[in-house]
């Protein structure tokens, strides 16, 4: 019996070692929690910063759209019929004498075409690039999704 006690005593840890282990485990848990918290804060802070950036860019886009529309109007005023006619007169142009017009046939030329601003006619489905949720989800979003997703697909649970 004494031999057994001696054996146990020989291999059991000293009280200070147990305390140290306890502290070590606590610290490891603490470090893990701090790491997780750090990652969480970093991710959410980055997301918030990106969100603000997106909001800022949207405002910029709106401002640029306004600016472009305004510039188009300004350009149209500068090239309006009245101004171009005035410039033509100032530059010495005059109405053509119909008798002096020479008509020649240009193969393949069908006259001045109507304007085409965009792809003509039928709309087609444009494939939208799908970004994996792994690149768009925040850590919290991912956690929430994990909680919400049943471990067994619902289809398999039914009778």
């Amino acid at each position, binding site marked *: 019996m004494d031999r057994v006690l001696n054996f146990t005593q020989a291999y059991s840890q000293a009280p200070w070692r147990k305390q140290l282990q306890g502290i070590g485990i606590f610290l490891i848990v603490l470090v893990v929690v701090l790491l997780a918290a750090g990652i969480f804060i970093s991710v959410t802070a980055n997301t918030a910063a990106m969100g603000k950036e997106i*909001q800022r860019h949207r405002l910029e886009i709106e401002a640029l759209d306004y600016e472009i529309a305004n510039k188009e109007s300004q350009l149209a005023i500068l*090239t309006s*019929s009245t101004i171009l006619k005035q410039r033509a007169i100032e530059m010495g142009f005059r109405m053509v004498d119909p008798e002096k017009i020479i008509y020649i046939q240009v193969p393949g030329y069908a006259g001045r075409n*109507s304007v085409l*601003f965009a792809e003509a006619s039928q709309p087609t489905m444009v494939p939208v690039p799908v970004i994996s949720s792994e690149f768009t989800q925040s850590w919290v979003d991912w956690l929430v999704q994990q909680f919400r997703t049943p471990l067994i697909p619902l289809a398999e649970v039914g009778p």
Partner: protein
Amino acid sequence: MMEKHRFRYATLGIVFAIFGIAIILRLFQIQVGAPNEKIQVYEDFDGKEWVTLTPARGDIYDRHGSLLAGSQLIYEVAIELNEVINPTTIALVTSVELELNYHDVFLKANQKASEAPKTHITLNYFVSYEKAQKLMELQNQLYENPKEAGASNDGIIHSLSGLVITPRLDRSYPEGDLASNVIGLVDKEGSSHNGVEERLQWLLSGVEKQEIISADPYRAMDLPEITDGASLVLTIDREIQDAMEELLEHHMGVSGAYAGSIIVMHPRTGEILAMTSTPRLDLSGEWNVDEIYQEGHTFNMAIDGYEPGSVFKIITMAAALDSGVATPETPFTDTGGLEVEGWTIRNWNGGAWGPQTMKTCMEHSLNVCLAYIATELLGQNRFYDYVRAFQFGQPTGIELAWEYGGNVRFNNEDDWHLIDLATNSYGQGIEVTPIQMLRAVSAVANDGKMVTPHILKAVINNGHQYTFEPEVAGSPISKQTAHTLSNMLAQIVESESYTDMPENYRVAGKTGTATIYNDSRTNTSFIGWGPVDDPQFMVYIWLNKPTSSQWASLVTGPIFRDVVERLVILMDIPPDHVRHSLTAD
């Protein structure tokens, strides 16, 4: 040792405890207690607000891409009471730059945000780009260096904080009055009136949305997308439109007419290349509608109704030829009068023209002859069947607001009389629009096929351009009838001295002079097209109450000649012999 430091530890503990309790109490106060005055202003703001999202209005272009109606940047200047530092500066600057009343602005800016019914007060909704830029410069100057920017020495900070300058888009019309009767307008309140602007408002405006916008950056991607209004490409050709407006202005002056209209249509496609009407608004400037449009004026005469007079004889003759009751050589003896229900139909000069043929009846525009055709040769049923086939009394559906459908009294209506048949045959007692006349007579120019006039060429929406194909409105007459009548009308133009057409272009046409009820003056019209063997343009001219002469042959005939002269150059149409030699190669 421990006893020695016990007091220090206890003191430190108490201090930390007091700090902790203070923080907890403060947190409790913030959560539950009455908020601070400054916070109270934002009490209702939870990071979300209802916002009206207004899509950008679509642009309007001519067929070659020249901008006819677009958008320009203007600004709303407002006061945001929460941010006002010095109401005096705001009142002073806005009274000088925006010509607002100093006292009014001061009273508005000096209100307490928490007591005011609303914290956002609009001062001016239509501030120009230049004025807004000046205000923003001043605002920045005062923000960066208030002293240098004119702060007084009495220690008062001059600031334009709280003056909010927000950009927005307003309608702009770069071409001024060009085609304004076609385009219509959008007023400062954003309502569209007349023309394409009103008729196609549903396409141009997009769909306004009321949405909750969150300031939360995590919800940045949730911002709602709004679809802007579609842009439109019209069939109008800016150069032709400009030339027609210039010609109309000139001839209005020469003829002393009260109002006038010229329309140019492609007879094969129904595309309106130009449509002008007087008076016109200069859409780029300030105007008073009541001053410009006086009694009897309409926004667009091309879609307004009137008694067309002799141009309608084309319809009667088309019916006679197509039904086989007459040929160009069918004889008719004009005695100068035709009795119908006790009324006597007379010719334009009151004379008797003696032996005639259908061709010369048209050439001399004899009312008696045409009334005879309608009453004796065609009969009421056949005549009105053709009037229906030519779709009189029905709007053409052109993409313009307020198109009039005309007024035809058909023989199955109670108030119809036989005299209506006689007068209708030469275009009196029947109300039609110039655009309806073009639609109907396009059948004569276009091998018997009547085209639907349209002014919308394409719609640009979501990156796609949808182009409209020409539509055949019907085939009221045969190809043979169309050719026969076309030649008859071409010979009329050739025989008339007034036309003096540009050499080497064969065109067809017909004048029309109509009396106006209770007025000694007339409505003068002309409808014509060319080249006859391959029609590229069809023209309708209407001058209301000219004073230089009451006869269309002297008023609208010369206009048609000038129109053709300009059109053949602008549309690159070679003289007939050149065209024939080029196509033969």
